[in-house]
């Protein structure tokens, strides 16, 4: 007999993971901005303003990534075990990108910083470029699959008890050779740059930075749309990894992800609404002297990414498919934590609105005015 409470909790936690993933993609505007420091900032003061505008937000992106990882571990530990232990090189590369970011803001402008401020800016650039592309590529494997095997019975083999194994020697690097994966990686990269430009327009009070950001917005919005549409159209026409709800067997189904959208109208509305908001924020910022596009595009990003995560895991879909053996694919049912653990964490998750509220209040308090040259000259803690 199906335990409906447990099923609800599994769906609830997939929603939380999806929401965290969506917020993470929005917050990647910090990474996008890091690749634009020299494109937008032509003088040292301009670059200082840009770095400080980003530097006051980098920790939120970082914390969201860490929380995303922690929540995934807690709610779907089999994914954590299978993907991280298997796609070793991709995850390690992502981690290295974030390690070098974490010190770069604080150390960049400090005297006697050993590596020189240029090196820290290169670190920021690497984080902005590889961090976004690799994260997007890794997430795309939720739809394209990976070559792994998983058998819990292995635990009883005392000489080799490992449950999950990667079945290619590339350990995740093969994901970067799949064009469909890369299209999402590049879409995320250009989206992060678009969001960063809109953030600069909204957050820095400087006419030259505003003008350059608007110009660059067009140059980055076009490739973003090209790669995003490539990914989405490809996704909707390809076969997807469906799960038989009675037997749990995984099978290939034509247009699975398009069908998921159609069969879940609320998710469809979220997706379409998200895409419209993203485009609205970009177009309004391009065509008018408008600086609040970040809100539309930002919210749109969260909605669109949330809906993509939801169609990966809901509606009897294997969210982490195995192309090595379909029956080893991970679903929100076979990879989740126990009912008790999900219940405990659900109670803790009731704190999330409170967390969001204090973040909002604190941000509002220190962002009462835009960053300008005068503030950079008088501020005691400058990156």
């Amino acid at each position, binding site marked *: 007999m199906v335990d409906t409470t447990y099923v609800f909790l599994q769906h609830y936690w997939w929603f939380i993971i999806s929401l965290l993933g969506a917020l993470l993609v929005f917050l990647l505007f910090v990474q996008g901005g890091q690749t634009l420091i020299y494109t937008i900032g032509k003088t040292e003061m301009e670059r200082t303003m840009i770095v400080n505008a980003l530097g006051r937000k980098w*920790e939120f992106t970082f914390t969201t990534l860490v929380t995303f990882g922690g929540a995934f571990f807690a709610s779907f530990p089999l994914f954590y075990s299978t993907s991280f232990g298997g796609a070793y090189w991709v995850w390690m590369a992502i981690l290295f990108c*974030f390690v070098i970011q974490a010190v770069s803001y604080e150390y960049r402008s400090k005297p006697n910083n050993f590596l020189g401020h240029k090196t820290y800016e290169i670190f920021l650039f690497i984080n902005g470029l590889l961090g976004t592309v690799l994260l997007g590529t890794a997430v795309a494997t939720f739809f394209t699959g990976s070559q792994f095997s998983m058998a819990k019975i292995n635990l009883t083999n005392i000489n080799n008890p490992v449950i999950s194994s990667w079945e290619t020697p590339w350990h995740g690097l093969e994901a970067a050779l799949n064009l469909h994966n890369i299209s999402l990686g590049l879409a995320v990269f250009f989206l992060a740059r678009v969001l960063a430009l809109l953030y600069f327009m909204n957050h820095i009070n400087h006419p030259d930075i505003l003008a350059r950001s608007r110009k660059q917005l067009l140059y980055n919005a076009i490739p973003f749309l090209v790669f995003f549409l490539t990914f989405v159209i490809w996704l909707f026409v390809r076969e997807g990894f469906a799960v038989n709800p009675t037997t749990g067997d995984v099978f290939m189904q034509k247009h699975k992800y398009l069908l998921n959208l159609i069969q879940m109208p609320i998710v469809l509305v979220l997706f379409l609404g998200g895409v419209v908001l993203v485009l609205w924020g970009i177009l309004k910022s391009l065509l008018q002297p408008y600086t609040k596009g970040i809100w539309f595009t930002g919210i749109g990003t969260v909605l669109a990414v949330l809906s993509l995560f939801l169609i990966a895991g809901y509606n009897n879909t294997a969210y982490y498919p195995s192309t090595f053996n379909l029956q080893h694919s991970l679903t929100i049912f076979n990879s989740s934590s126990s009912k008790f653990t999900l219940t405990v964490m659900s109670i803790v998750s009731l704190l999330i609105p409170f967390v969001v509220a204090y973040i909002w209040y*604190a941000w509002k308090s220190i962002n009462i005015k835009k960053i300008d040259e005068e503030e950079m000259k008088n501020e005691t803690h400058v990156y």
Partner: protein
Amino acid sequence: MEHFDLSLVNWSRAQFALTAMYHWVFVPLTLGLAFIIAFMETLYYKTGDEEWKRITKFWMTLFGINFAIGVATGIILEFEFGTNWSNYSWFVGDIFGAPLAIEGIMAFFMESTFIAVMFFGWNKVSKKFHLISTWLVAIGANLSALWILVANAWMQYPAGMFFNPDTARNEMHNFWEVLFSPIAINKFLHTVSSGYVLAALFVVGISAWYLLKGRNVLLAKRSIIIASVFGLITSVFLALTGDGSAYQVAQKQPMKLAAMEGLYEGKEGAPLIVVGALTPGKEYNDGKDPYLFRIQIPKLLSFLGYRSGDAFVPGVKDIIEGGYNYTDKDGNQKVALSAEQKIERGRIAIQALADYKNAKEKGDTIGMAYNRKLLDENFEYFGYGYLNDPKSIIPNVPLTFYSFHIMVGLGFLFIAFFILMLYLIYLRGFLINKWLLRLSILMIPLAYIASQAGWIVAEVGRQPWVIQDVLPTVAAVSRIDSSAVQVTFFLFFIIFTTLLIAELRIMFTQIKKGPKEGGN
């Protein structure tokens, strides 16, 4: 038949040890300095004295430099549970993952939100809101330590869980037992208080350097007073929680206690080694005297471990060979099994799991019930089933022994130091005691050595277990090439060492510049 790749296991352990030890260079200072800064800012808020604000901002600058690299080294650890210990992630993810998720939701966001206010809010928010933010950074940092230490304590003493053969993993059934296990409480209090002591010594040491140079005298005097009071209180507390930790180790991890004391043959009324040197190449059953020399306090180990001066403390040999009486966690008197018997029972448990799965596949309910019972009866020794040699349950005794004695010795030195410092402050003589000021500077590296030694005792002493008695390291690793881990080990080594050099140079430069030129 395939076999464990011991090279993979050892490199994976080395990588985790490397990243954990680097992370632990920076975290203790964050934990303690956050509170010291909060005290200082509270004085500014209460008195309105601008000098307190200047002092607060100076220490805050050093806090920021240290905090950034602490964050950088921390992210790796969380993900390494998946990348390098994938079997572990599934086997106990149901229990271990929850504290990590709660840490993210409750602590990291609090820390990262209010740290922005702390650094950038001086001229933007009210004095009161700023002060609250500084306190919340301190609380957030310590809350994050709570959750990760709860998770670590659970690995040392797995409580509040049961093994579910259907999912082939351990599952949580009592969150409060996980959170409030005696090991968790002691571990949290002992670990954070070690951070407070380290931060206090850091502040005293740097202030002493200013006094020796005759610079920033008011800042140095005030900082020394605040840090010395904080340091004395927390170092005494550190000793008390250390006693609590050792007591829990005696009950739950007797092999670790035996390694900490170099005790090979158990005895009633066991002495505590104050200072000693171990006999090199000692085997657990060769009958050689384990010590080249020792200074000991009679019966104290028995008293500290079991609250009775005449209690029997098992040594390494006893734990390998079994046959001694002990009290189990439910208070029952039992005779200890030998390691060989435990390995046998572990194998029975593992085979019972395999047979249970087979029976389930065939729909054989009687077979399922039989094997479930067999599994439950032997699960206590499940992890032993993956071991081949009884000797493999012995951790590295010399490393554990010396680390333990260095940690304890330095801990008592710190208490004496703070007492002396406060006494001289009371006599108003500390400003002219150049030897004391020089000693204060020396205390900073000693604090770091003690701090690292503590983690070595905790983690090396519990080998070969990832989860005590339930999962050994050999059964917890990911299935990747040993060469891949070697590459990432050296990458981490290079990058963390580079960042450490950068951090130290920036820190020294800021200290030399002092508060006025230090971005304040």
